[in-house]
């Protein structure tokens, strides 16, 4: 592993994004636009927005980063640049961490904008510290990146990569507590919900928004949830590194 190579990868991914205005818009503008739309929908019921807002603040970075990452890394595999890089002095973790770093940075920017919008003009009721919302959002985004890196190993085309959306992402959205509170789910689904990382991401976000705690105003449960999200991210990155083979058939 070498920091020089990791930073080179991150800088390159950011340069690619800079040239790609649509993806930049998807990353930076769309999440805020969706939240604005939601606020407008519930114009007469700000209490519903207070309830849904935090969950969406957790979901949107996860979905967007999953999509952008899986398509970008798949392109790397199919264009032959991955084969070339792995023939060079490039550690497999350097590549994954480089991607994680670049998209993590984009996620920080994205979440910063979305959280500022929600806590400011949209008037979302946030009891805990606002900066923790950004921390949780970045963790969720990096989780999405890790999922994207992992599934791209099992896809041959960009279309196939997108097909993982309904398989990997949609069940997590259904069971994360957005539609029905997680303790109200039927037994087996509740167990499944406990096994899915997005549930912890949404729990953490909702907790920060709805409660203050003793340590720096943050509820202890938030850090435990974040710990789960981080652990799953590390696991997925490790699995991703295993699926990156220097020699292929």
């Amino acid at each position, binding site marked *: 592993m070498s920091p020089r*190579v990791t930073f080179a990868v991150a*800088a390159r991914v950011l*340069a690619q994004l800079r*040239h790609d205005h649509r993806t930049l818009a998807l990353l930076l503008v769309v999440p805020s636009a969706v939240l604005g739309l939601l606020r407008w929908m519930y114009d007469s019921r700000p209490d519903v927005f207070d309830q849904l807002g935090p969950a969406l603040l957790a979901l949107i970075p996860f979905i967007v980063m999953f999509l952008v990452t899986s398509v970008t890394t798949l392109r790397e595999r199919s*264009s*032959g640049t991955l084969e070339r890089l792995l023939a*060079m002095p490039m550690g497999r973790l350097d590549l994954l961490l480089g991607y994680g770093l670049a998209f993590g940075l984009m996620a920080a920017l994205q979440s910063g904008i979305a959280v500022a919008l929600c806590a400011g003009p949209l008037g979302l009721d946030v009891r805990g510290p606002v900066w923790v919302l950004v921390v949780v959002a970045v963790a969720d985004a990096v989780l999405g990146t890790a999922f994207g890196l992992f599934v791209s190993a099992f896809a041959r085309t960009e279309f196939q990569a997108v097909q993982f959306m309904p398989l990997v992402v949609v069940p997590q959205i259904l069971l994360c507590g957005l539609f029905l509170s997680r303790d109200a789910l039927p037994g087996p689904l509740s167990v499944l919900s406990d096994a899915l990382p997005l549930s912890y991401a949404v729990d953490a976000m909702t907790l920060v928004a709805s409660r203050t705690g003793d340590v720096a105003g943050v509820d202890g449960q938030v850090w435990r949830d974040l710990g789960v999200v981080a652990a799953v991210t590390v696991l997925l990155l490790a699995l991703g590194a295993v699926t990156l083979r220097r020699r292929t*058939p």
Partner: protein
Amino acid sequence: MSNAVRVDRLRVTRGGTTAVDDVSFTARTGEVTGLLGPSGSGKSSLLRAVVGVQVVAGGIVEVLGRPAGSRELRHRIGYVTQAPSVYDDLTVTENVRFFARVLGLGPQAVDEVVGAVDLGRHRDSRVARLSGGERSRVSLAVALLGTPDLLVLDEPTVGLDPVLRLDLWALFHRLAREGAAVVVSSHVMDEAQRCDRLLLMRSGRLVADDSPEGLLARTGTADVESAFLALVRGQEAR
């Protein structure tokens, strides 16, 4: 001159078919070795095995005295895959600069290789806007970074205009003279005459390993295309 590549009884199977079947040869430092054969004959599979990115079914591949794919070799091999493996959405300079950073090289190395493939005029163009030939030269520029001891070039001259093709062959010979081993594949038989050594491949097997002159003399033919035909017919008659 020393052996840069030694391949002994190599076998590669891909997707259930035998792509490389019991191939042995050596490629020497200071020479341009041409790997010629029709499309599907196993050239890319063989070159991938030399670079160390191909799972092999049997045999030995040794590069610069080490097993192919060794970590120590990753700094010393320049590899051009058959499809230009560069980033379409970046400019020429951005592409080369990225790979230079991976290799730990500075901006001077970037200017050198961009100049060597004559892309100075296009240095700030996005690769997606370049022609196919220009794009493959960007890929070649990346392979030249850090003056590698072995250059493995998979069909680098396909689709280039004849003048440019001549220029590139001159470049390959210059690199060999300066101390590299150069292995170039092509499915265009005309290009064989420009190599110091020739490997002719068909259906995964080597049908000839000779100098261009030696091959023509041995088969009594006037060009490599006819020599290839003569060799294949000779084998089938046996």
